[in-house]
């Protein structure tokens, strides 16, 4: 999983049926750089530091589906990260 900061949202009305009613967040990746559009399952909002899963099998388990075009999911809102020296 990757640490990221939510910077925005994406609105789409014409989409693959899997994305009906899903919330899409733009997540800026902290270490890897760049961004991902991820589906939100934890009610994260703009400004939140989050944990983004970017792997298809885990994503499908979250949505309890066998098949679907989903890979990036916001799975946690980060309170704090400790990195002892």
């Amino acid at each position, binding site marked *: 999983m990757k640490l990221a900061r939510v910077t925005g949202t994406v609105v789409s009305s014409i*989409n693959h049926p*899997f994305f009906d009613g899903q919330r899409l967040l733009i997540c800026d990746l902290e270490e890897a750089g760049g961004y991902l559009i*991820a589906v939100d399952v934890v009610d994260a909002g703009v400004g939140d530091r989050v944990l983004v899963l970017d792997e298809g099998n885990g994503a499908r388990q979250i949505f309890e589906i066998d098949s679907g075009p989903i890979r990036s999911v916001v799975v946690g809102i980060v309170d704090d990260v400790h990195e002892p020296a």
Partner: protein
Amino acid sequence: MQLGRVTGTVVASVKANGLEGVKLLVVQPLDEHREPDGRAVVAADAVRMAGPGELVYVVAAREAAEALDPAFVPVDHAIVGIVDEVDLP
């Protein structure tokens, strides 16, 4: 998933099994501010309504094939939504 701008269409009359009837579009990946980012890719249109000029979002890798029906086709990028609005407060 990433944002992209559809810049063209691809016509291929000889295709691998599974690609028959799949609409192929040229997509320029964009950063979150909608500036071009990287090289263009060819993506399958899983919403069947995308066309040149449109702002879309694209899923990559194996999950792209799962956007299509039947799912296990030789595709590595698929358009899964047309973007109405990107809100970056």
